[in-house]
């Protein structure tokens, strides 16, 4: 860094050097000098509302707010003088004028910044003897409550909702002692219900409907789990008491998501305690599903499977987009080695094999992997988004894109058939006809003729869901796709995000486009669920082994055959749709469904279904489970330890937070069934399975130390061409929104009871 970009100053007698433009409060933090603050929050605009951060600066007549003053050359600062101490005490006393001091019942008690500051910097007494102004608490939504007397008016909630979320649902009303936070819809909120305002509140003024008055923070154990909903892979810190999850938040900013969580990661955990959750195995007896013991259920499965094997019947296996990597890996082993079939698939929502195949030819050009971690969006110079709708379907990625736009000057290019909300941060937004995204990409890649497009003007259509949003900045401009192309071609080191609109050859065109752009282009393919990407990596495909190696590639297959000491089938099997068709024709003798609901996507006539032996393991009696012969109650991700791979390809470790007495993990069930079928998979120990994955699945030789430390590791399974039968019609995104998420979403009270659910149903406004 050149000398003129550094600033030298003295804080409490210590000489320090920091980059120019650093705020004084950050300079203090850099050398571990604590300056108490309430309204200051890193990466939000400065507010200077609370006056807690006053410090002495030589040559300045009055105390200064350290949160607003940028460092200057030669500045001499004191944070530990009698004047500063007195200022802090007085400010603290003022903040407590009307504060109810109901810490013994307040949710925040024990983790409250006001409590901590008062203990450390306050006087412990107050001179006001007037009665305190009391106001009743207000419920603004099923998940957001506001206790006005506790509010210290730091504006953090207002700023995180506006600047961070781009929702602008909170404001400040009135003046002076009557000031109060206001929700956007008069007496309630109409917003994304993310709860970011609650997490960021330094006191107990904003509290969560899910958690309030349930427990005290020190009575819970706090477990870092990976969110089981969308594919973004946020870490949600689960507060657990007596093996039940009581709270989800991420106030410690651990994980790839920093402080971010959406409504699902924060409140959605309640599906684990839903009354309809399966507690025991069920078996179809006289046409009805009846509770049976685990031993009975598992033995029935093994007995029937053996009989079918002896008769030469065909098997099919459908894996899960939420099961952990270890479980998906062992599931495909069970299919291939024990059941002897490649008829295995999962609900595909991103055409990753085609992406990796297309990248295989290009990866030699760059040294860094052509995949982008979620965090890279925060600093990217340019992002191209084709299809998808991150705001509602990949909330963390949207948060990061907005972050980049706000703090790093990221130029965002959006190519879409709808004026999605992220156009508000777009540098250019091209709207094409629905389904024309692929053609537009080909045009941008120089492979095809012009496509009708218009560069979007600000359209209110989408935001009808909320009262109003302020106009985006900058205003998108008019023009055609040529203009978009010309602008895009000026960029380098672009991160490209693409939705399920692009599949098959469209993705090849996208990679060609990326190849034409300067620098290292990196890609993120949007996949629906918490381990959709992992399911693909772990080989839940009829023609691909783990790591995208072909089942008919003798060398690759041979490696796994040697590892497991068994012959594996070399012929590609049936995909999910083909398995459904085979079931309908009575040509599939057995189907084993693990954490999936395939009959919802590919319905099969129930009468024809009865001719097959259907085993389903899941948390709830899904449409598919209702038709099963045996139903096995499984565990939720929050009840398991292992790894998941997010939509970007980042592997992360998740830890068991809660328990569900009746259930078993998919891993335990798969191992038990393998043993009953005469194959020993060893102890169902996720660490051992992950060790095997690291050693044998391309791209997964990631650092366990990094994972154990709570960080993510990018798995890059690029290994030459991927000989995959691309099946574009099988790429089917659920388009889950903030308020839905496949089966699990249906069983979370929290995400179903917010009123926005009605405004934002999947498929609506699309």
């Amino acid at each position: 860094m050149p000398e003129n970009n550094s600033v030298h100053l003295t804080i409490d007698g210590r000489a320090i050097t920091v980059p120019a433009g650093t705020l004084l409060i950050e300079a203090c933090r850099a050398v571990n000098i604590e300056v108490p603050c309430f309204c200051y929050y890193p990466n939000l605009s400065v507010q200077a509302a609370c006056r807690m951060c006053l410090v002495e600066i030589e040559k300045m007549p009055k105390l200064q707010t350290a949160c607003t003053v940028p460092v200057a050359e030669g500045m001499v600062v004191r944070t530990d003088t009698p004047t500063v101490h007195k200022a802090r005490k007085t400010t603290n006393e003022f903040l407590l004028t009307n504060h109810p001091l109901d810490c013994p019942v307040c949710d925040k008690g024990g983790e409250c910044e006001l409590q901590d500051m008062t203990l450390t910097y306050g006087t412990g007494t107050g001179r006001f003897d007037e009665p305190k102004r009391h106001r009743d608490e207000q419920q603004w939504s099923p998940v957001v409550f506001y206790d006005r007397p506790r509010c210290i008016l730091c504006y953090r909630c207002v700023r995180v909702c506006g600047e961070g979320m781009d929702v602008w649902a909170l404001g400040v009303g009135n003046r002076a002692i009557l000031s109060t936070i206001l929700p956007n819809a008069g007496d309630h909120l109409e917003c994304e219900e993310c709860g970011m305002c609650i997490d960021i509140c330094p006191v107990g003024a904003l509290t969560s409907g899910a958690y309030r008055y349930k427990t005290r923070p020190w009575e819970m154990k706090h477990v870092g789990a990976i969110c089981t909903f969308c594919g973004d892979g946020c870490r949600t810190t689960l507060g657990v008491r007596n093996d039940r999850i009581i709270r989800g938040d991420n106030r410690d900013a651990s994980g790839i998501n920093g402080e971010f969580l959406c409504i699902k990661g924060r409140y959605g955990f309640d599906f684990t305690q839903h009354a309809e959750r399966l507690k025991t195995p069920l078996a179809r007896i006289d046409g009805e599903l009846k509770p049976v013991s685990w031993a009975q259920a598992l033995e029935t499965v093994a007995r029937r499977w053996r009989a079918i094997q002896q008769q030469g019947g065909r098997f099919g296996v459908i894996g899960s987009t939420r099961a952990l990597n270890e479980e998906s890996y062992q599931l495909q082993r069970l299919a291939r080695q024990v059941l002897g079939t490649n008829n295995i698939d999962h609900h595909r929502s991103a055409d990753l094999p085609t992406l990796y195949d297309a990248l295989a030819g290009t990866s030699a050009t760059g040294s860094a992997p052509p995949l982008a971690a979620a965090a890279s969006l925060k600093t990217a110079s340019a992002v191209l988004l084709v299809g998808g709708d991150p705001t509602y379907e990949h909330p963390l990625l949207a948060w990061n894109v907005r972050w980049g736009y706000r703090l790093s000057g990221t130029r965002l290019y959006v190519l879409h058939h709808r004026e999605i909300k992220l156009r508000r941060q777009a540098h250019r937004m091209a709207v094409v006809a629905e389904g024309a995204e692929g053609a537009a990409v080909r045009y941008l890649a120089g492979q095809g003729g012009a496509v009708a497009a218009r560069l979007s003007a600000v359209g209110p259509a989408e935001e009808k869901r909320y009262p109003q949003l302020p106009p985006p900045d900058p205003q998108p401009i008019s023009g055609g796709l040529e203009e978009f192309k010309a602008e895009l071609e000026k960029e380098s080191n672009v991160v490209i995000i693409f939705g399920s609109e692009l599949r098959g050859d469209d993705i090849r065109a996208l990679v060609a486009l990326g190849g034409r752009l300067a620098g290292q282009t990196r890609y993120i393919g949007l996949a629906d669920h918490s381990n959709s990407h992992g399911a693909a990596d772990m080989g839940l495909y009829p023609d691909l082994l783990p790591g995208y190696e072909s089942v008919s590639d003798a060398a690759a297959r041979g490696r796994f055959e040697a590892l497991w000491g068994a012959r594996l089938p070399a012929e590609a099997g049936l995909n999910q749709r083909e398995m459904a068709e085979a079931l309908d024709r009575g040509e599939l003798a057995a189907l084993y469904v693990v954490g999936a609901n395939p009959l919802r996507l590919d319905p099969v006539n129930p009468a024809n279904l009865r001719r097959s032996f259907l085993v389903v393991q899941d948390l709830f009696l899904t449409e598919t489970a209702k038709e099963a012969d045996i139903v096995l109650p499984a565990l939720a991700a929050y009840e398991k330890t292992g790894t998941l791979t997010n939509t970007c390809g980042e592997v992360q470790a998740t830890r068991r937070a809660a328990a569900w007495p009746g259930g078993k993990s998919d891993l335990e069930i798969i191992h038990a069934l393998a043993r009953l079928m005469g194959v020993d998979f060893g102890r169902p120990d996720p660490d051992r399975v992950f060790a095997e994955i690291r050693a044998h699945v391309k791209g997964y030789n990631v650092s366990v130390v990094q994972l154990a430390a709570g960080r993510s590791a990018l798995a890059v399974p690029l290994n030459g061409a991927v000989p995959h039968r691309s099946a574009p019609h099988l790429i089917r995104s659920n388009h889950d929104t903030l308020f839905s998420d496949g089966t699990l979403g249906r069983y979370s009270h929290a995400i179903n009871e917010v009123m926005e659910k009605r405004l934002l149903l999947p498929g609506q406004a699309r």
Partner: protein
Amino acid sequence: MSVFSPTLDAKLTRLAEAYPQRRSALVPMLLYAQDELGWLTPEAIREIAERLGETELAVRETISYYSMLRTHPVGRYHVQVCTNISCLLRGGEELLQHCRKRLGLEQRDVTPDGVFSIEEVECIGACSWAPALQVNYDFHQNLDPARADQVLAEYRQKA
């Protein structure tokens, strides 16, 4: 469709373009709107928010900051009696009580016929001629109960 008269509509359009930052026009626009409508109706708030590209919430924040801006109807003649220090010392409080009684507004703020409403306000800048009251934008000063009756009677006549 604007909720405002064509004249005001044109004026607000000019105002919205008059400042380097559009939102700077907010307070003047609110005042003109309130003058025409008597109070800031939800429709007026929505329209002004739209004209300036602000959220309704942002407009409501501003309105709630200023006590002169109101979101509830008042009478055609809005009587604002000052009880701040100078007026208080010279009988402002008694003046307020007297006016309330005379207008029959002891328990409510607006007369049933909507002609008068009353509000206790802070200093209106007429301290030298305290006690003072203001009806809409007109000042009436050096008041005692008898003179106040006269003032109110004049407005009653106009109504």
